[in-house]
């Protein structure tokens, strides 16, 4: 297990370096700093839930990689719907908790906008990454349960930071 952990750590360090790149923005606006763990975590969770469901369908033989496959499309739609449900709550929650324990610099609407924009983009990316990884695992005859979830969770972590960075640039400058 250790070699896998070390490889995944190197992937995670990449997202750490991106975070380090906008550390000053984050330290200046604590509500954005509060968004970091929950955005990364939720992106990874969306990906891993989708991956777990698709690999179960795959094992049951009810999944095909056709663009009109009901299982595939239904699960992809659910992933986007879940993101659009939880990310407004995440934005509002991050702002509220920051206001409770200290002071906020940004208006609540800005923090919600950052969270929702990041969440919507992440849901789409999580679907793409999960489908590609599941398909590649299937092609190489690997069990998707072993391969897909760790890869998807850690790739979504990195994407979570990159997308959050993009959303902050877009709405905060």
């Amino acid at each position, binding site marked *: *297990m*250790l070699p*896998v*952990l*070390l490889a*995944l*750590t190197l992937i*995670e*360090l990449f*997202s*750490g*370096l991106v*975070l*380090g790149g906008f*550390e000053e923005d*984050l*330290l200046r606006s*604590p*509500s954005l*700093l*509060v*968004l*970091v*763990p*929950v*955005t*990364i*975590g*939720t992106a*990874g*969770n969306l990906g*891993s*839930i989708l991956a777990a*469901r698709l690999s179960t369908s795959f094992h049951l033989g009810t999944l095909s990689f056709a663009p009109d496959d*009901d*299982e595939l*499309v*239904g*699960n992809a*739609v*659910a*992933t986007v*719907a*879940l993101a659009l*449900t*939880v990310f407004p*709550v*995440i934005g509002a*929650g*991050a702002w509220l*908790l*920051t206001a409770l*324990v*200290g002071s906020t610099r940004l208006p609540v609407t800005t923090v919600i906008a950052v969270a929702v924009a990041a969440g919507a983009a992440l849901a789409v990316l999580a679907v793409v990454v999960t489908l590609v990884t599941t398909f590649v695992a299937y092609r190489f005859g690997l069990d998707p349960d072993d391969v897909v979830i*760790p890869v998807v*969770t*850690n790739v979504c*972590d*990195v994407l979570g*930071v990159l997308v959050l960075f993009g959303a902050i640039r877009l709405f905060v400058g």
Partner: protein
Amino acid sequence: MTVREVAVRAYREALPALGASLVGGLIAGVVLGGMRAELRAVPGLLVLVPALLATRGNVYGSFGARLATALHQGLIEPRISEADRRFAAAATAALANGILTSLFAAVAVFVILTTLGERVAPLPTLVGVALVAGILSGVALTAVVVSVVFAGYRKGHNPDTLVGPVVTTTGDVFGMLFLLTAVRVVFALGGGG
């Protein structure tokens, strides 16, 4: 099933777990937001955060999954007093993996930031923080995973569905809390450079 039925079912099944980890993630975020002084005092600490949080999830998610499988197979009993050598070995391996990976992350952050010419805390500070955080969160997460999986199993819940949400929620919260504790311990011991 139609696309709509698949989507509605997937949505309903996933929402509670996502909601639970959302609460954990926000609490972890508040801890991170509250340690801005520590982040400024230890350059490179923020770079380390995603790797440390992911390590908690990867190591203890896998430990929980092993524990659940062993319960299903009847290899262990869901009681801590009856925990046997097999169980102790799995717990020790998880702790060792978690600490080694944390130390590796700390050294890698130091090497990368030094190579890039960025500001970075001294190596002993980063390694000390990673070591203390790895030990404290490892012990706490082992206790949480074991008690939740055992208690859930005795009450008739499938431990497989408990492990994921429990590890992601408590992993983030304990990961951040013990990272903050670790910085304070290392500074108190004079490792702040």
